[in-house]
């Protein structure tokens, strides 16, 4: 058996994660090139394609951001190759512009844009429903109902895009990408992979004179695709009852189970929808004609509902169309929530709102939340701690604004650090800093990680320099994209598969952006970080403090692989007075109370020695090696 089930041969029934199934489907569809920027819940699609590259020979890359990834995939498709680009839902905002241009042109090779949306915001900052983006951009959209369907949906989407000459979207949600189920693998056929640029400036240059023509061609192309989606196998009807249901994507299995739990399968007729845009209008019309009323069950926005209601209106249908009146707008759907909606839709007296059970109430009381925390030995903690210390030294009336960005370091928001005042999206911490400083007149220390800096931090840094902003930037350089599982970025010097790559050194990049004041400080050295921030906040203009320490998870992984044991820090019990200032102000997760004293868990401690800083233990009770992590 091969080490990875998604590499197995055709005909095998294997357990795959939804994102692995999607990757396998792309490969079975003859994928030639894939680009992506990591982001939960999409990352495993590209990770799988990377692991499969050696066997199947497709091109893979982690790109610097979603926009560039999309452009790379577009160029492959224009050269006649089959291409995919994948990202988390909000990444679509970054990718939007090239995509909007490309949909006008149409494609030569298959092109699949994969957005992994995140209802319930399990690991995202909004619930944006990218089906709206699809319609706005004229991207025919496929939604797998579950992990197992993911493979076929991805495969067919890639082939249909080529057949239709139109880029398409595959939209997943967290439960689709992050659940596993059985998948029967299909065959992978070898493909000749020589792209040819089909020179045709009138087609690939969207000057208005061309774009006006493209727009009309696009409208025509979509009209023909509108007819073709009727035959797409992911749209199907089951049952013959007179109460109609339409469920899009991941809402379908939830609806199916809810109908079964309620015992109303017989009375129902269900349209399972795999293409929410364009809608298979004829199928929907037949459902409207054969049902008294129809409930649209979908997660998030009434995207399908509004289209069905408009269609019913045009058809003068007698069937009433409902949706969000009964199905919640916010959050993932569950069988319980949908069943409650169906009961109300069927006119059954709804019971009183569900109260938490006794066991639920007590469990909530007993088990405090356990949010993810910055790892033991992570240098981000040291940076935030030093920032807090400098802010305190400035006095009460000199509050420092601390905008942050997207990455592990957003966890600096959590107590005891409380060192994140605002957070928007990739790069915005730096962009807003210039404004916060100008409009409030206050000092600003912004935090951004290295991968996010390369992704979206360079234009706002240029902007800060260009507009004489007065800010301090803490650049947290841990040498990787840590939050999503250690993907390389332009500062790493490695490609997606670990092979050698060009390397852009971060301090040279910062200098090239026009920043004169740059301090490079070891990430474990809280004393030096404090000094660097002190002098930076007392200076005018743009200052950058680069705090450098490799991600502790990577260092520890290397140590384990080499069979090395690093040193750890410990508490000298006779010196510890049990004040717990260390836990209360610094809060490394390796620190824990042991009766009336503090102790350091030797299993958890990474040995970085940051806690030897004199501010953390007033009794100097912690022993260890300063900067011991890399020794």
């Amino acid at each position, binding site marked *: 058996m091969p080490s990875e089930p998604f590499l197995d041969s055709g005909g095998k029934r294997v357990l795959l994660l939804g994102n692995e199934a999607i990757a396998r489907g792309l490969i079975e569809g003859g994928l030639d090139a894939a680009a992506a920027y990591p982001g939960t819940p999409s990352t495993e699609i590209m990770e799988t394609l990377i692991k499969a590259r050696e066997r199947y020979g497709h091109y893979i890359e982690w790109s610097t951001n979603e926009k560039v990834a999309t452009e790379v995939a577009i160029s492959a498709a224009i050269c006649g190759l089959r291409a995919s680009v994948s990202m988390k839902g909000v990444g679509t905002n970054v990718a939007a512009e090239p995509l909007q241009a490309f949909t006008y042109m149409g494609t030569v090779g298959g092109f699949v844009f994969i957005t992994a949306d995140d209802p319930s915001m399990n690991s995202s900052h909004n619930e944006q429903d990218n089906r709206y983006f699809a319609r706005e951009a004229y991207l025919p959209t496929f939604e797998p109902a579950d992990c197992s369907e993911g493979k076929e949906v991805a495969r067919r989407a890639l082939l249909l895009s080529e057949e239709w000459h139109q880029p398409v979207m595959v939209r997943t949600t967290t439960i689709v990408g992050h659940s*596993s189920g059985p998948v029967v693998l299909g065959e992978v056929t070898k493909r000749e992979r020589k792209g040819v640029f089909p020179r045709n400036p009138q087609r690939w240059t969207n000057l208005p004179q061309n774009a006006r023509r493209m727009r009309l061609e696009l409208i025509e192309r979509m009209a023909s695709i509108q007819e073709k989606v009727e035959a797409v196998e992911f749209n199907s009807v089951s049952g013959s009852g007179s109460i109609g249901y339409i469920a899009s994507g991941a809402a379908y*299995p939830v609806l199916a189970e809810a109908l079964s739990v309620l015992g109303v399968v017989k009375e129902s007729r269900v349209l399972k929808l795999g293409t929410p845009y364009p809608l298979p209008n004829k199928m929907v019309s037949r459902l409207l004609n054969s049902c008294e009323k129809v409930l649209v069950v979908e997660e998030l926005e009434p995207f399908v509902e509004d289209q069905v209601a408009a269609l019913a209106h045009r058809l003068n249908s007698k069937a009433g169309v409902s949706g969000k009146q009964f199905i919640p707008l916010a959050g993932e759907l569950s069988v319980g929530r949908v069943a409650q909606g169906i009961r109300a839709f069927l006119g059954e007296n709804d019971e009183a709102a569900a109260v938490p059970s006794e066991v639920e109430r007590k469990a909530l009381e*007993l088990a405090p939340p*356990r949010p993810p925390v910055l790892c033991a030995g992570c240098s981000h903690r040291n940076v935030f701690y030093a920032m807090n210390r400098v802010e305190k030294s400035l006095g009460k009336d000199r509050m420092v604004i601390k905008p942050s960005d997207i990455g592990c370091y957003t966890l600096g928001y959590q107590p005891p650090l409380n060192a994140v005042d605002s957070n928007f999206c990739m790069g915005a911490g730096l962009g807003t800093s210039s404004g916060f400083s100008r409009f409030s007149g206050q000092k600003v220390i912004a935090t951004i990680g290295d991968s996010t800096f390369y992704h979206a931090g360079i234009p706002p840094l240029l902007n800060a320099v260009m507009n004489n902003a007065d800010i301090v930037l803490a650049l947290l350089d841990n040498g990787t994209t840590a939050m999503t599982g250690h993907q390389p970025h332009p500062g790493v010097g490695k490609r997606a598969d670990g092979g050698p790559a060009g390397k852009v050194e971060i301090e040279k990049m910062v200098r090239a952006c026009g920043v004169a004041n740059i301090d490079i400080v070891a990430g474990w050295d809280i004393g030096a970080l404090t000094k660097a921030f002190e002098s930076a906040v007392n200076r005018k203009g743009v200052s950058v403090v680069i705090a450098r320490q490799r991600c502790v998870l990577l260092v520890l992984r290397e140590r384990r692989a080499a069979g090395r044991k690093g040193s750890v820090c410990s508490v000298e019990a006779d010196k510890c007075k049990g004040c717990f200032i260390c836990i*209360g102000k610094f809060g490394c997760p390796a620190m824990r109370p042991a009766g009336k004293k503090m102790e350091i868990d030797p299993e958890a401690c990474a040995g970085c020695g940051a806690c030897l800083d004199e501010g953390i233990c007033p009794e100097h009770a912690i022993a260890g090696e300063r900067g011991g992590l890399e020794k």
Partner: protein
Amino acid sequence: MKTYNIIFAGVGGQGVITAAQLLARAALSAGLDIRLYGNYGMAQRGGSVSAHLRLAQKVLNARIEKGQAHLLIGLELLETVRQSPLLAKGARVLTHDAVINPAGKMLKGIDAKLKAHLEEFFPGASVFNAVKLAGNAGGRGINAVLLGAASATDGFPVKPVNIETCIREDFGDKAGPVLEAFARGRGLKGK
């Protein structure tokens, strides 16, 4: 067969998802349909981790509803209690008895309260020290002990031999101690 619902609960780094995947593969090799849903992404940074595993001839939806799980496999006591509302009345609880304090929290005397909660709502819950039973298998052994104990419960839908095959596949020549831990877990039946 009615859908059989299992909850896994633990803390990032304990191997919650890995254990659930192993059982899922064992069930798949026995010809069952399965859905496994776990919270990926945050697992590395010490957050709560749980996984939903559903087994049947045909599973519709991946998520287990409140009050619907038949069995909970816990690697940490606080997380076991956190997930307990998903359990049905009369469900089985098998959990390692260690408590890992959330970072920065000092919970005094919490162990007894957590055990009392389980005993109150799920009489006969098995709360035991799985480290002792794990023997030489270390951290992975804890998961193996719990899977062994689970496989010995009444109505458990996966045969031990299917789980043992998956352990051999995953651990190769290091499978010995893990299989022993699994066997010791099976021996807990009736406790």
